[in-house]
């Protein structure tokens, strides 16, 4: 299979004077789970709606399975969609909701009935066919919306922040279920979210959107460990952005006591470095290689301990994170600490400070 499941090529879209998408291009392979990640207003939902056919792009094209669909009306596209507010039909039962697309296709009643039962079993709602929508819980409605789209066996399934209205526990549970469902059906999933943890947890690849463009596309680990831009570094997870300066012919972390970047790395003389909090370690008090600092803020998050440290003479506070189990005793606000920086794990970012 050489053609991708979904190709977006040079798609631009503006609403009045607002440019929502600027020449976005992307290829998604068959059976992939790809997330569109970004803050509100970045264009991810607009792109989703263009793929679904509810908006027309000002430029560019969309192809499914190598075939252009840009000019196809929404109801002829082999694309399924689960809306943010689910949009379940309030005047139909669960079974009729799920079987809506089949009824439109004039599928034989007996065949449709079997398919509906099968897909309800797939989403673990067997026997719910006769219920009405308002009798269901939030999680159950989610699954009905999914079933309704999946029964059509779409080439691509689009999901527009379907879990954002649910509480944390339910969200985690459904994330897992969605992932399993995707593996089982082998459908290509495009998942829009603003929650980067969600995107990292579920996706084969993540596309990070900023201001109508894709800053980076890649596997979750790649995006996390090697962010391509400052925005990606700061949006996906937390990070410390440190300026590089030239000093005596070497690249040095500014304001951090002259720590130099390891020569092994291809380091420009000036630029930015992204260092994740978990790569800032607490060294024993007598370790000379560390930098002296004082704890400014402490946050106990169950599994992880986060701290904000101030280095004397340095304007920028440094974030550090570690498993709470391994945190040294006696840590409190105002306590002195020694910080070590695992620069091998740092990422070099383009652009000036």
């Amino acid at each position: 299979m050489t053609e991708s499941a979904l190709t977006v090529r040079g798609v631009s879209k503006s609403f009045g004077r607002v440019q929502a998408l600027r020449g976005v291009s992307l290829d998604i392979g068959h059976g992939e789970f790809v997330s569109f990640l970004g803050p509100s207003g970045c264009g991810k939902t607009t792109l989703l709606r263009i793929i679904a056919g509810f908006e027309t792009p000002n430029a560019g094209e969309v192809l499914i399975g190598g075939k252009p669909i840009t000019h196809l009306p929404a109801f002829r596209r082999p694309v399924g969609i689960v809306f943010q507010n689910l949009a379940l039909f309030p005047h139909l039962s669960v079974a009729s909701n799920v079987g809506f697309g089949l009824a439109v296709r004039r599928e034989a009643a007996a065949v449709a009935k079997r398919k509906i039962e099968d897909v309800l079993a797939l989403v673990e709602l067997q026997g719910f066919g006769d219920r009405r929508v308002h009798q269901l819980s939030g999680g159950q409605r989610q699954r009905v919306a999914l079933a309704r789209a999946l029964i059509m066996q779409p080439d691509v399934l689009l999901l527009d922040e379907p879990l954002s209205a649910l509480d944390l526990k339910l969200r985690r549970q459904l994330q897992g279920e969605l992932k399993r469902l995707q593996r089982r059906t082998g459908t290509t999933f495009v998942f829009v979210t603003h929650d980067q943890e969600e995107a990292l947890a579920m996706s084969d690849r993540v596309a990070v959107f900023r201001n109508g463009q894709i800053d980076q596309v890649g596997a979750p680990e790649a995006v996390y460990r090697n962010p391509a831009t400052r925005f990606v570094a700061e949006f996906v997870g937390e990070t410390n952005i440190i300026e590089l300066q030239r000093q005596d012919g070497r690249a040095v972390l500014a304001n951090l006591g002259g720590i130099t970047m390891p020569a092994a790395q291809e380091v420009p003389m000036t630029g930015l470095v992204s260092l994740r909090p978990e790569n800032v370690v607490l060294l024993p008090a007598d370790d000379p290689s560390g930098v002296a600092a004082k704890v400014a803020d402490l946050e106990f998050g169950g599994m992880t301990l986060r701290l904000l440290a101030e280095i004397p003479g340095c304007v920028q506070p440094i974030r550090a994170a570690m498993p709470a189990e391994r945190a040294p005793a006696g840590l409190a606000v105002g306590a002195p600490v020694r910080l070590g920086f695992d620069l091998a794990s740092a990422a070099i970012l383009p652009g000036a400070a």
Partner: protein
Amino acid sequence: MAAIISGTGLALSPAARLLLALPKALAIGAFLFSLLGLMIASFTDAGGGASLALYHDLLNSHATRLAIWRTLWVATMVTLICLVTAYPLATFIARSRHRDLMLILVISPWLTSLVIRTFGWVVLLGNRGVINQILMGIGLTSEPIQIIFTPFALVLGLAHVLLPFMVISILSVMMQIDRRLTEAGMSLGAGPVETFFRVTLPLSAPGALSGCALVYLISAGAIVTPLLLGGLRDRVIGTQIFQEIFALYDFPRAAALALILVVTSLIAITPIQIAEAWLRGRISRI
């Protein structure tokens, strides 16, 4: 302090509530009293005792039966015409980019008295009205065509006058239908027409039914339009009542006719309202 259960923050005692409700209660009381007056007047005979003689008389009179039938027929025709015309129009307006402009066009006539809108048709359809003047002017006919004072003129005029009621009834519900529902329909393969019949129509039906009840009621109880466009020869119950009082000074007869009108209208409307309530109940409040 008692728990606040209402949005006003007031905790009213039953006595206070009674006091507040008094003015409205008086108004309703007057209304019911007037209806009682109709019943008393129509259910007594010349001697002052209770009797159905008047109703017997009326319902056996050919003229009255004809008027009742004509009222039902006109009201039903007007309702159907309004329904069939208003639905496409409402759908069109609901989705249009120029929705507000179109709404101004529909709502403005609705705010004027129906005597004014009926007058418009008198000007158009009269024997010396605009249509006849044009027809005679171009020479298509030498004598004015009788358009006014026909059932056609009455039904046309009433339908035109009452169309805004139906459009607004349907639009009230249609504009509240979540746009995502039609998009969901399309994402599942239903084209525009199919989406309308499978999604928009079922969800807007309660509004259409409520519009039907409204239009039917106004048509059945109309007097001014039937007088101006239908004439005195082909009477409906409204014009008949009017005649009984202002030409014949017969209040009991007018009262009896009024109650016949009320009962027949209720019989026509009740199924519509039951259907509307049932439909609203089936649509989930998510």
